[in-house]
């Protein structure tokens, strides 16, 4: 691969006038990319609106998708060339959980950006259990322990306690499970026979597409949900719910969405893949540039009906560094949406491994796997090699700073210290099995779920 790049670079310098030095020899120039109406699709919208795709010679159509399943199927069938994806989707598709198809990611889209919201009614029941600050406002982060007595009441009355997340392998599923488990609640297990994920659950989690979350909660089908922005802030604006925690408060700078393409596409179109990655890196840089100076402009873009389409003021809340919990309780959240700083776009193996550990924790991976398996899957799916090639080209063209990229990373982030995570359990991607065993609720090494029971 390195040689191809070298030849390409020399070829283009010989041939071209300076303006075209950076256009690669593209295998495919017309691309259709899918996205879900969420603020973290911003790099796609920015790359399109600011002409970064065109600069690379790419002619992109962005298409909103109805839900994560439709989006994944679109990428696998080739109707979409690539898409804004849940980090769990390429991993699950590659190991064959749900749909099987090798998908890779050369680009992580962002850090943080999600929240958990409960309905007004549940919040009223939870609030007495939440410690207050001196000024009378609730003290954050709020633990699911405050929710536990409410769930207990429901169980005593024999009523199910339903909450929503967006997809079985979504960040949101793992986040709400993490939060519930950290507060002592059982979110339920998956097994090969029962893919509802509700085996032994105190809180019954089910799938609802992101934009329908507020409406579904308002209708009373679910009492709360985990979702990306703007659908938590929307609940506050419409007065139908209260976000209780952001994912930043659960785990500082946790990895979020990725940009996914099929392995086949990347192999058949290596230069197109590079060009796409370049455009997306530039968009991410723009989003975080000069201390988020461009965020207001990004909000205006996202509020157009063809992108997220929600009201600009709702989107602005989280995008510009604030988060509103109860109505009027606006708190600063400068890192709520991170698109580039802290190496947000670099596809770290340790991020992939965290998702895999959660799949194992809840039984989506039904048996214990050796540590090496986790490393291998991560290296199959996350492709820092492509990322760094693209970054190198941008640096050479003067469109990015050398210092902004982790050139020598081995793909593992510094282990998350206990203080950065809500239940105080540190995470180190180098020891996945040890990490799984250190989590109090969830499957441990050697355990399996059969006939609706945890064995072993």
């Amino acid at each position, binding site marked *: 691969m390195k040689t191809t790049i070298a030849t390409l670079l020399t070829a283009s310098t010989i041939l071209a006038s300076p303006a075209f030095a950076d256009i690669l020899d593209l295998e495919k120039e017309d691309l259709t990319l899918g996205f879900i109406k969420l603020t973290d699709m911003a790099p796609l919208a920015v790359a399109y609106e600011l002409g970064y795709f065109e600069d690379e010679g790419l002619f992109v159509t962005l298409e909103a998708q109805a839900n994560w399943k439709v989006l994944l199927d679109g990428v696998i069938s080739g109707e979409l060339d690539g898409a804004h994806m849940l980090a769990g989707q390429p991993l699950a598709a590659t190991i064959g959980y749900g749909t099987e198809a090798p998908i890779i990611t050369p680009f992580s889209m962002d850090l943080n950006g999600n929240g958990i919201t409960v309905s007004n009614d549940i919040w009223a029941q939870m609030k007495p259990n939440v410690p207050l600050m001196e000024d009378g406002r609730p003290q954050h982060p709020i633990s699911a322990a405050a929710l536990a007595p409410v769930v207990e009441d429901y169980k005593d009355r024999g009523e199910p306690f339903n909450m929503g997340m967006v997809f079985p392998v979504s960040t949101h599923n793992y986040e709400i499970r993490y939060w519930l488990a950290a507060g002592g609640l059982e979110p339920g297990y998956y097994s090969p026979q029962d893919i509802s994920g509700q085996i032994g659950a105190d809180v019954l989690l089910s799938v609802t597409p992101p934009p329908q979350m507020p409406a579904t909660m308002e209708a009373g089908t679910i009492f709360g949900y985990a979702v990306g922005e703007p659908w938590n802030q929307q609940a506050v604006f419409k007065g139908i719910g209260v976000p209780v925690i952001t994912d930043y408060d659960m785990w500082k700078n946790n990895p979020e969405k990725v940009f996914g393409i099929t392995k086949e596409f990347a192999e058949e179109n290596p230069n197109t893949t590079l060009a796409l990655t370049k455009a997306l890196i530039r968009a991410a840089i723009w989003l975080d540039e000069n201390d988020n100076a461009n965020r207001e402009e990004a909000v205006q873009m996202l509020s157009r*009906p063809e992108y997220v389409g929600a*009201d600009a003021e709702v989107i602005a809340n989280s995008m510009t560094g604030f988060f509103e919990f109860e109505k009027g309780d606006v708190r600063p959240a400068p890192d709520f949406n991170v698109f580039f700083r802290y190496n947000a776009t670099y596809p770290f193996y340790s991020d992939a491994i965290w998702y895999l550990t959660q799949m194992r924790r809840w039984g989506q991976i039904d048996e214990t796997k050796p540590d090496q398996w986790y490393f291998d899957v991560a290296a199959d799916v996350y492709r820092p090699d492509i990322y760094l090639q693209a970054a190198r080209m941008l640096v050479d063209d003067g469109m990015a700073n050398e210092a902004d990229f982790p050139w020598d990373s081995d793909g593992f982030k510094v282990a998350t210290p206990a203080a950065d995570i809500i239940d105080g359990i540190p995470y180190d991607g180098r020891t996945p099995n040890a990490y799984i065993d250190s989590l109090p609720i969830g499957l441990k090494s050697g355990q399996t779920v059969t006939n609706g029971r945890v064995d072993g």
Partner: protein
Amino acid sequence: MTAIDPQTLDTEARRTRRFARINKADAWFKVLGLAWLTPILKAAAGDNPRAQAGEIWRLLGVPLLAISLFLVAWGTLAPKVQTSLGAVPGPVQVWEQVGSLHADYLREKGRETAFYERQEKRNADLIASRREDRVRERVYTGKPTYYDQIWTSILTVFFGFLIASIVAIPLGIAAGLSATANAALNPLIQIFKPVSPLAWLPIVTMIVSAVYTTNDGMFSKSFLVSAITVTLCSLWPTLINTALGVSSIDKDLVSVSRVLKMNTYTKITKLVLPSALPLIFTGLRLSLGVGWMVLIAAEMLAQNPGLGKFVWDEFQNGSSQSLARIMVAVFTIGLIGFLLDRVMYALQSMFTFSNNR
């Protein structure tokens, strides 16, 4: 006996001619849903205004009054319903969104022009730097405007409807002419007719994706999926009505055809088709109506381009304008449905000479 003033005669003749013309036009006004024009023209032409006033009131006044009552009721009741997207919009807000959709369209056109200017410049630069092989002519990839969505839906419905008619009319004729064919077709019709369009959609989607594998064919997959779903649902009214029309031909005519020893082809073209035409057209009109309703539902569910997708996208946007924009789409869908029906009615009036108009 007084001599008739030639002047009067002339005026009288002109007057009669004018009325004849108005009466002739009336047939077309009826087709176009403009029947209220006739009494106005008659009154203008000097007919007894008192008699025409009654007609005008009935054909124009009452509908207008009903519409205004509807608007007033809507305007007063809507703000009282609070939803998670704000109050239900009244007529004023909906009308504002019509303007805003048009503004969106103009903005998108501007972006399109800018895109082509950039492309031209890029290509000119490429040629200047002697790299002609890199010159590309691209079609603009922006989002479809509201008008584009309307156009897509109309094309899709006509395509699906056309296939349905091509299949249904011959089958209907066969079923009407031959008791055996009828016996064969009848159970299938009975079973498939009541199937909801949305049940067909997953099947059609799977089959189209499996069979139509090329990604750059003449039609896009989504277009085919929508169109075929429309076909499957709009097949039945045409089929049933054609069969009915063909089987109820005057028995004397059939006897005549026997006497004349007509072959099947002549019999069908000279005899069966002309007499079954009114019912075939009734079937086609019903089919197109069904097809239009089905199409919107299919587009919503499958996210295929068109007005249905527009509605679903807006619902997902959840902005404070979303509900009003959805209502614009609802009225557009209704109006287009009405126009489609009128088009079919006009065709029917042109092709058939029966009193079934």
